[in-house]
């Protein structure tokens, strides 16, 4: 079945530094979604990328969808303590029988002040 892998599993970042987390799917995706989950919370939708090679920015966050629509990345610049949490990518495959969203294992981000 479809698998979505994320690396790294953990990311320790000094406040003010940049980092990137990567997401890879075993199958071609209809779209890729990114979520953030704070400790003790639930996943909160951040963004959705649909087109091959698409790049979207949200303030200090830059999201990219690969040309083959099988991988994606999230780059955060000037990390802040509010960026703490787990970032999940989720690949959507659209089928006639219904759409299925498969989550990666997440990248847990810890920020050192």
């Amino acid at each position, binding site marked *: *079945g479809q698998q979505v892998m*994320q690396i790294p599993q953990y990311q320790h970042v000094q406040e003010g530094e940049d980092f990137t987390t990567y997401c890879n799917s075993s199958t071609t995706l*209809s*779209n890729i*979604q990114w*979520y953030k989950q704070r400790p003790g*919370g*639930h*996943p*909160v*939708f951040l963004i*959705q990328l*649909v087109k091959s090679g698409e790049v979207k920015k949200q303030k200090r966050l830059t999201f990219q969808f690969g040309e083959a629509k099988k991988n994606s990345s999230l780059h955060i610049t000037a990390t802040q303590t509010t960026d703490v949490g787990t970032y*999940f990518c989720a690949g*959507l495959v*659209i*089928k006639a*029988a*219904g*759409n*299925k*969203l*498969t*989550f*990666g*294992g*997440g990248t847990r981000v810890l920020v050192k002040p």
Partner: protein
Amino acid sequence: DAGVTQSPTHLIKTRGQQVTLRCSPKSGHDTVSWYQQALGQGPQFIFQYYEEEERQRGNFPDRFSGHQFPNYSSELNVNALLLGDSALYLCASSLTGRGIAETQYFGPGTRLLVL
């Protein structure tokens, strides 16, 4: 505009018991998906309901069943609970557009502990 709501927030059960979790979708949404999130892991897709029918199912045993009501709310039932069923159960709602990519909005989850 109410978001996705779930009840109860927390639940403690013993092995072999049965549990029912409830979800009300975001206003205007007609599709409900259920996920199981074990500690330290990503959400795992259980199944999705649309038009009161199970439309897609993940790799979960038949002990996991569900239902969707005419008002689009949904229930997740788990029979013969095992210790390994302890997890955060998330409900996500979306609007089905028949081939249009859909964004899912998650509820706060029900934290189930099986002793």
